[in-house]
């Protein structure tokens, strides 16, 4: 598929996903969309992620393949860069923490530019890093804020997050910065993908679909909070029922909620099979989580065939007499 086909395909897919609960719930299938599908999606999510991680863990990584971005550990008088070229666990842990929390490798992103004819130069390009930080952290805050639907009494963590997130006190219900930031982040990631020709060329439906899906989830969430409000008490009855395994489907929750819930279910179910699984994969990337200790530790390839070797000592034992007869030097004379 080319770029525009990929985009149309993903857009149509998300459109269908929005229509399904719209038709289904209007036809009265509230327990299917309110209980059965969310449960199924969560089961798929957990089983899928665990199976993925186990599958990754089954592949041997016989050699150290970390990306090295600094001086390797060497002589004591050469300053080693233990963060960008870690030789021990401590360095790896620090490197991983910075990678997972601050997206350090994205911060290194550079752009190749042509100028004055054939000359090239590399420029720093931090926008992707910034977009990714905004997107991921606002998503995290939005995700954690939703715990108010799954805890009773509501955990203090959520209360704290809500008061920080809504400190602007704009409008009622109070505007949450994270909601807008998430929408802006996902929009930026999409615009970046279509406005850079090289990036557009390599983009596939599996790139556009998650973006559109998350956009739709954010949009329905914001609409539900600020514009077409739904019965929030009914929503919590449903979600808390799911969490306590006593599912109830209260009447009169707006259909917008079911669309939101269905899209989130799709996201959960789609997670283990898509690029989104980098949530787990980032911890298992051998280019980040391996110490560069090839010169200190011998790493043996687990699938090496047991080669029969005939050492020199054995050779000499076999031919010693003949060698002495022929006047050849031997190490052990009987």
């Amino acid at each position, binding site marked *: 598929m080319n770029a525009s086909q990929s985009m149309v395909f993903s857009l149509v897919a998300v459109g269908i996903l929005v229509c399904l609960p719209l038709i289904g719930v209007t036809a009265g299938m509230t327990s299917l969309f309110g209980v059965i599908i969310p449960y199924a999606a969560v089961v798929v999510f957990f089983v899928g992620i665990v199976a993925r*991680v186990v599958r990754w*863990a*089954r592949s*041997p990584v016989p050699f150290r393949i970390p990306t090295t971005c600094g001086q390797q550990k060497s002589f004591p008088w050469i300053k080693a860069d233990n963060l960008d070229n870690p030789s021990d666990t401590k360095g790896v842990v620090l490197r991983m923490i910075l990678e997972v929390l601050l997206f350090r490798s994205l911060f290194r992103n550079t752009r190749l530019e042509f100028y004055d004819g054939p000359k090239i130069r590399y420029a720093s390009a931090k926008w992707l890093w910034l977009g990714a930080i905004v997107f991921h952290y606002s998503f995290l805050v939005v995700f954690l804020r939703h715990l108010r639907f799954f805890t*009773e009494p509501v955990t203090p963590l959520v209360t704290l997050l809500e008061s920080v997130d809504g400190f602007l006190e704009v409008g009622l219900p109070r505007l949450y910065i994270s909601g807008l930031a998430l929408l802006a982040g996902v929009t930026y990631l999409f615009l970046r993908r279509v406005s850079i020709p090289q990036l557009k060329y390599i983009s596939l439906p599996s790139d556009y679909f998650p973006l559109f899906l998350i956009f739709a989830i954010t949009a329905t969430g914001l609409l539900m909070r600020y514009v077409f409000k739904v019965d929030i*008490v009914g929503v919590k009855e449903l979600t808390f029922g799911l969490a306590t395994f006593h599912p109830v489907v209260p009447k009169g929750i707006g259909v917008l909620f079911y669309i939101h819930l269905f899209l989130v279910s799709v996201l959960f179910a789609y997670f283990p099979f898509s690029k989104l699984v980098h949530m787990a994969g980032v911890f298992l990337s051998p280019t980040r989580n391996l110490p560069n200790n090839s010169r200190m530790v011998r790493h043996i390839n687990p699938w090496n065939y047991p080669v029969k070797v005939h050492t020199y000592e054995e050779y000499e034992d076999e031919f010693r007499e003949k060698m002495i007869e022929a006047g050849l030097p031997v190490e052990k004379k009987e």
Partner: protein
Amino acid sequence: MYDAKKIVPGILIFVVLFTFPLWSNMGKAAPAPKPELPKTEKVCVMDTAYMKTEHMVLLNQWRDLVVRDANRLWVGPDGKEHFMSLQNSCMKCHSSKVKFCDQCHNYAGVKPYCWQCHIEPKENM
């Protein structure tokens, strides 16, 4: 499986963290809140469905009209005139904050800032 000493704890941490809503509520039941409705009046200034979802918007408009425009009279869609006042109009019927407002607000984790300016009714509950 390689590195089982790291993979297994990792998976366990993931599962325990992400199932927090399931195990933290084990055996708990939180029945839906039942806000106490006034006995004297049958209808609010707008219909129930509107008041349920949009009351905060209306209260915000009232606040602006009263505080910024010094306008205390509000005409509802049914043509009835109402005196815009949280403590004197709303609370006249919905007299108990604890039995009415807090019921749903606590359940849904909402902390309205009405009572930063208004005087909270003293209730011994």
